[in-house]
């Protein structure tokens, strides 16, 4: 011990004041966090999932689908589809241990509405380098709309443990320059 003179120790009064200031800072930080998250929500800077997806799709009710009977739904032919009104919809089916379509081609700069489902267990649909991230659940449809801005090839990985081949469940999204 080399203390030269006694150091005043912390006491109740000072601490209580500092505690209150700290509590105030914590609450303000919280409100700021919440506001910023809500702002990204409102401005649509991330592809948030629809509450209940795919109401207009044959065979889908309240976001649910019969996984044994997808033959009667657009998921029977996975891939990109252009609707008569010009909107684009991509149907993706996940199953052990691959995605269909194996390669999804989408045009850059146009909004695409994705519908993702699974035929067996839970899978994840995550497009690398983007914030596209949805759980593929058997019997349910995850729907969200996104726009790919730059052409290129993006790896798409299953990020939910789905069994012995989980690490090999990889596919590609190829974003193409739109042909005008």
């Amino acid at each position, binding site marked *: 011990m080399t203390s030269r003179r006694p150091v005043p120790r*912390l006491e109740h009064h000072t601490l209580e004041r500092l505690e209150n200031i700290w*509590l105030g800072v914590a609450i303000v930080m919280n409100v700021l966090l919440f506001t910023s998250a809500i702002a990204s929500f409102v401005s649509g800077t991330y592809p948030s999932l629809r509450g*209940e997806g795919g109401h207009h799709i044959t065979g889908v009710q309240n976001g649910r689908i019969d996984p044994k009977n997808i033959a009667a739904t657009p998921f029977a032919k996975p891939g990109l589809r252009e609707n008569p009104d010009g909107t684009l919809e991509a149907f993706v089916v996940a199953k052990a241990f691959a995605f269909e379509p194996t390669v999804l081609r989408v045009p850059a700069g146009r909004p695409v509405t994705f519908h993702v489902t699974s035929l067996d*267990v839970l899978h994840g649909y995550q497009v690398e380098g983007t914030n596209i991230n949805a759980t593929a659940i058997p019997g349910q449809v995850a729907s969200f709309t996104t726009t790919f801005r730059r052409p290129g090839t993006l790896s798409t990985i299953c990020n939910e443990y789905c069994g012995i081949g989980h690490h090999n469940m990889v596919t590609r999204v190829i974003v193409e320059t739109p042909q005008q």
Partner: protein
Amino acid sequence: MTTTPLHAPPGQASASGIPAPTGVVRQPPPITDAGYLASLKKVTQYYVVTAFLALFIGVLIGPLQALNYGGINVYDIPIVKALLKSYYQGLSLHGVLNALVFTQFFISGWLLYLPVRDLGARINMRFAWFTYVLMTAGLLLAAVPLLTNRATLLYTFYPPMQGDALFYIGAAIMVGSSLLVVGQIVLMWWNWKRANPGKVTPLVTFMSVAVWMMWFVASLGIVTEVVALLIPWSLGLVGGVDPLLSKTLFWWTGHAIVYFWVLPAYISWYAFIPRHAGGRTVSEPLTRLVFVLFLLNSTPVGIHHQYADPNISNLWKTVHMFLTFMIAVPSLLTAFSVTASLEDAARARGGRGLVGWVTRLPWGNAIFSAQVLAMISFILGGAGGVVNASSSFSPVVHNTAWIPGHFHITVGTATTLSFMGIALWLIPHLTGKRLPSMRVASWAVWTWFVGMMVFALGMHWQGLYGVSRRAQVSAAAPDVYRDLPIAIPTMLTAISGVILLISALLYFSVLFRMLLSPRVENGEQTPIPYSEAISPAGEKLAAAHPLVRLTEPLMALWVLALALVLLMYGPVLARMVANMQLVPGWRLY
């Protein structure tokens, strides 16, 4: 409840690393029945040793996972292959043993023993032993399918991936028996309240009871999932299972469980750590407020784990996001209080300057350093947690390697490293055996901290590039992982596995040497390290600080916690039940 001033020369560290107190510390009522005390200590010791045996096996499997992320597939080595069918079986064992078994057994012993000693109460020891035996029986039942690769589900066990019914039944018995501890402790406390009207519940008891109440509210989700959905389904009694409903019930418990893991460490940080450093607990009223905030706010937040799941309305996802952010408040209050108590200690030991006092803390005492290093890494873990909880950041990191990076510096240090430090005085206290080497223990603790930091850095980094969580990337056929610029982070993860293996071997060598050594003294000579408080709560409720009076009615707050969780989950679950969609089970491992 009496408090006697004890005047002893400061800075005199005993062999067990607990210095003599410098001021007024709480003297819990003595337990005079030696046979009863011995039985109470023995059952606690059984819980703690079972916990560490689980951790021992669990951490030995850990490096296999770390090397995998470094691109080294050790699962093809014949001896590993003979023991573990696959990477995923190894990962299931690692997760279940470390995250579920170690924590639950340690906490059941620790939070049974502390409040009983704190009140000097008499509990039914037959019932306490029965609970231990039941919990262990549940563990053994669940272990059979785990070890035979019939429950390779990882610790989240999401259906419709199906495991053996024995796994679900064993897990239900194991978790269910922790509720018997809840009942025993809450009842003990309630009897004390009735025998001591107008008195303030002592701090350690208050914190323990609040944690057990929180765990009760939290466990209802998983108990409902396993008992009502998974057991009948795995026995073939019903045709299918709703995966989303099951997952939602799982996360009802699944997020709050992390607070059930970390709050028992908080108890030590608040009540005991100051004593190890020679300082004082900052404020008892504030500590009570923190635990009540956790009781109310830990549970109704689980949907932030499900931002990527369809068919949950964005409104409820957002409500749960806001409530998740709110839990940062008691955590930040803890950061303030605990740091203040350390500063108080360091200044009492002659520390000076704005940050210079830090050097005066007893960094060579492994009991102390384990818990303070745990807190330091928990600051970074908590910051990452805010990222995970945010619905706008979550999609970037959800289910990537970032997530295991996150929970290894939260659960893997805040909880595990704290418990490792606590055991270094708790086992001498329970058994009368001595810690064989503070030096080796200290090396173990510091290398654990460094190893976890390196692991977390590597995993967070890879995660940002989109490397999947829980994937045997070292055996992946597609070249996607090799196209990513992840050479450095994957190498860091592999190195951390080696550091952590060395750390674990050091720690367990000390622990086992201690456990196998002969008893040399009365365990009571290593006291429960109660600290003095700068702002104590006092003994009389009528004269106490408003925060003490506000937080004392824990029974009413318990009901409020239950009401809050029903309010935040009721509408979500009601919609899922109304749209129930049963799908068949699969076994793809």
